[in-house]
């Protein structure tokens, strides 16, 4: 059971990483990046390193995701203005 979960987790990590890099729309890439960060936090928890999982979820997915979305919004407004 836990092996199936780990396999699924690893596959979805690879899937989200690949799509984060290849998807053409920036907003989707950012959302996929946040999803990747949350899956990564789960992976750390499965590797019995909940410390790193917590930090990854808060900094990797949360703060970085918010910064990226903010930067995307700023880019969007600037393009709309010019």
């Amino acid at each position, binding site marked *: 059971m836990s092996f199936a979960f780990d396999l699924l987790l690893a596959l979805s990590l690879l899937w989200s990483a690949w799509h984060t890099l290849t998807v053409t729309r920036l907003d989707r890439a950012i959302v996929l990046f946040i999803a990747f960060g949350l899956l990564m936090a789960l992976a750390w928890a499965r590797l019995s390193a909940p410390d790193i999982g917590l930090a990854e979820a*808060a900094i990797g997915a949360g703060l970085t995701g918010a910064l990226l979305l903010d930067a995307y919004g700023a880019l969007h407004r600037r393009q709309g203005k010019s």
Partner: protein
Amino acid sequence: MKRIAVVAAALVFVTALIAAMLELGAPAIDLRAPVAAHQAQSGVSHSVTAVLLNYRSYDTLLEIAVLLLALLAILAVVGDAPVSPPRAAHPVLQTLARLATPLMVVVAVYLLWAGAFRPGGAFQAGAVLAAAAVLLHLVGLAPGWSRPRLRLRLGLVAGFVVFLVMAAALLPQGALLQYPRAMAGGLILLIEGGLTLSLALILAGLFLFLSRDEAAS
């Protein structure tokens, strides 16, 4: 054709990587035993916290220095743009943020306290506090930060300064950041408290200083 070649090369590379991983020998030095053996003297009962804030506390000292440096660089770049009042988000979102923020503060304090004996610690607590600040800013309850005044500056450097002063005061012990055995737990908690405050402000500042010019531009 080119695509197939790239995919084939990537597959070969991944296979080689996996093979290399499986071929890894046992590590030359096994540090788990000494870490466990000195746990009782470290002042905390969780091995990760013992490594981060006792055995290798200079790593943590340099980490907080690097983060502070990053924030100083951002402050130098963004300059003196005026802060515009935040746009209020939907009332439901505001209510949710109002409910979540006290919970996040409680979680941060718990993580800081729990770091001594289970997974947690200053970095996680600081990140949760910073996320609460970003959340308040995003729903329009807290303004973005302009040029930092004295109090904010003090908060930003508090963790690093406490850590440095501690390191200087402990130099007579013989080694860098070697805590006296009886006081180790208290000193670590003091350093972690300062670190949590500074990390929360620095991580929140990364967002709040950078996002302030969006409405103005």
